[in-house]
């Protein structure tokens, strides 16, 4: 059942077993998993079924670090940011969960194996194909679509699979509406999570609408699922008892904000023989029951040996290179006229003289790279207020020289791999700079602000996603990520939500 919060009488108190705050990918996944179970569920969503500028404006805030758009990078209505996501899905690698001694603050309290069964279920929820992300044999289709045989053991091909992309708000609206135990309140904003006087237990949620209605929800258990930035903001705003915010006795809430810095064309690749490039590298390709795209990633062995963080690189066809080419004077990349010379040099080494004017092809790349967790990269509360009278978000996104240097070194590894192969030469266009104070782009991937750690001094939630020190408050979403890896977060956050759902259901079976 859906109820418009603006129609709820002032002062109403709603008793429920479980309150889920936020109806995005995590909140909807959790609500669905509780459908028709022996528990009452209240799903509270700030928006309605469609975009509303006034509600969206509640996301506005200040950016004081690397410039970042708070309101354009997420959506505040039923379905959340799945209303604009691109559908890129891939699980993290086992190494991403590990404590890596060269990555400060790394190490999840769970492993890849803990999450694997949930990843497989998440694949179905996101309407993705078979769970074959690293299976070269599966995508090679008997050798017809073999990945590039890059030697050296540093760079490898892996695959993303695409969700249609699933609009969670559209696809799962009906089953949530039909579930007898779930009531969804739309246009309803949680103003504060109010704990008991000793702040060890959530007592009630204060809820308000932009139209001025105020009511309360009294849950046995709360799951905060408002997104990677808003989860931290909500805990910081819940400060009537704990002045530093809920779950923030160690000043960790909001810290370790991570994104995936995106760089367009950090490198280009010239190939003498483009026929070896399987189409799945260049664009979305339907193959063996999935829509896929191949990317270059860096092997665990390389990351360990060179003490690096990861980067994922896309690869697309750009231009045929010919001996009789007229170079575009408007092209911002200089020295294009040397491209035929580079291809001729490669052909000299292999003794492969071109038959005609076509010497090879130029390929462009794009990349998303991992940034190391950084406590100074953070979300705090701004002094400015939103339309509900709540402090807006202040974001201070930090990228470091080490993050920049890491990407540079990974590009050199890419150059080594293509060079050893002999069919390609890499041109590194990513500039050396002494600081990284401006990002060309990012993924709208908000991670780390309520990070998972067994140690309350290093994380906000434990391995079960429960806020340290509060017995009935849980968090879902990408704010849980201890490290960001290089892959889009949706599949992982859905898997984590499914795992949390199992834990909550076991908790209810035992009695809250």
């Amino acid at each position: 059942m859906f109820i418009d919060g603006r129609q709820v009488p002032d002062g109403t108190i709603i008793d429920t077993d479980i309150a889920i705050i936020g109806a995005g990918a995590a909140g909807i996944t959790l609500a669905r998993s509780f459908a028709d179970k022996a528990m009452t569920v209240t799903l509270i969503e700030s928006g309605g079924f469609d975009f509303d500028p006034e509600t969206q404006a509640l996301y506005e805030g200040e950016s004081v670090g690397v410039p970042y758009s708070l309101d354009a990078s997420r959506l505040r209505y039923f379905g959340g940011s799945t209303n604009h996501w691109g559908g890129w899905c891939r699980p993290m690698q086992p190494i991403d969960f590990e404590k890596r001694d060269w990555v400060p603050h790394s190490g999840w309290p769970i492993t890849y194996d803990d999450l694997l069964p949930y990843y497989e279920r998440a694949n179905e929820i996101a309407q993705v194909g078979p769970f074959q992300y690293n299976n070269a044999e599966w995508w090679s289709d008997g050798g017809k679509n073999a990945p590039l045989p890059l030697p050296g053991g540093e760079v490898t091909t892996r695959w993303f699979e695409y969700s249609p992309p699933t609009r969670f708000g559209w696809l799962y609206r009906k089953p949530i509406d039909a579930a007898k135990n779930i009531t969804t309140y739309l246009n309803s904003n949680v103003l504060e999570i109010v704990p008991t006087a000793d702040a060890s237990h959530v007592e009630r949620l204060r809820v308000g609408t932009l139209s001025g209605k105020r009511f309360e929800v009294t849950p046995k258990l709360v799951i905060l699922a408002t997104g990677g930035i808003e989860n931290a903001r909500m805990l910081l705003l819940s400060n009537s008892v704990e002045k530093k915010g809920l779950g923030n006795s160690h000043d960790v809430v909001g810290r370790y904000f991570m994104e995936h810095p995106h760089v367009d064309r950090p490198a280009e690749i010239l190939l003498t023989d483009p026929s070896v490039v399987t189409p799945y590298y260049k664009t979305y390709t339907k193959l063996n029951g999935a829509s896929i795209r191949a990317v270059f990633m860096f092997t665990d062995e390389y990351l360990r040996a060179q003490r690096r963080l990861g980067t994922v690189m896309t690869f697309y066809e750009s231009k045929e290179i010919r001996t009789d080419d007229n170079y575009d004077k408007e092209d911002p990349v200089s020295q294009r006229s040397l491209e035929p010379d580079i291809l001729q040099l490669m052909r000299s080494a292999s003794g492969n003289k071109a038959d005609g004017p076509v010497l090879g092809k130029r390929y462009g790349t794009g990349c998303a790279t991992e940034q190391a967790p950084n406590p100074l990269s953070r979300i705090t509360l701004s002094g400015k207020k939103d339309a509900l009278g709540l402090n807006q978000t202040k974001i201070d996104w930090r990228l470091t020289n080490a993050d920049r240097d890491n990407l540079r070194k990974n590009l050199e590894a890419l150059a080594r791999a293509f060079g050893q192969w002999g069919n390609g030469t890499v041109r590194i266009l990513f500039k050396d700079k002494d600081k990284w104070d401006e990002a060309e782009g990012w993924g709208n991937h908000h991670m780390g602000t309520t990070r998972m750690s067994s140690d309350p001094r290093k994380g906000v939630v434990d391995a079960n996603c429960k806020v340290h020190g509060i017995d009935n408050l849980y968090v879902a979403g990408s704010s849980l990520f201890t490290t960001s890896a290089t892959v889009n977060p949706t599949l992982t956050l859905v898997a984590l939500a499914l795992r949390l759902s199992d834990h909550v259901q076991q908790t209810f079976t035992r009695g809250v």
Partner: protein
Amino acid sequence: MGDTSHDKHEPHPAISRRNILILGGVALVTAALPLAFPRFEPDSHTLVDALAGLLVDRDAAARLGREWRLKSTGAREPRVIAASIGKRLVPYGWRKDGTPDELRTALLARIRHDFEVSDMVGISGWQLARTSAELCALAASLADEGKHDAA
């Protein structure tokens, strides 16, 4: 016979201390020369030709070589460059009396090795094996000398 100092004075029965110092200095310089300047192999001209013969487009390689020379302080004399490349190829099976195919095989193996050990040079961002860059420098030097016109 003319009047010479030799006529006037008896030859010194022993080499003077000054001459010992001079001779010692000459010997040291002579010994050091091969270190300072790679010695041309008797057939380094042949190697220059053989290496240049591998290039499918010598003008193209020369252009890259000139780009590289803008930021390298390497040799300019073709025989010196060829000798340097030859030394790099020896561990990969190159022999002075080998065939062009053997030379190419050794070159390819050395280029792969350069990439494997990250011995790369950047030319306008393109990451080339150092051996490839030297080959380009050879082409540039030959072009500067007016030899080996475009193939």
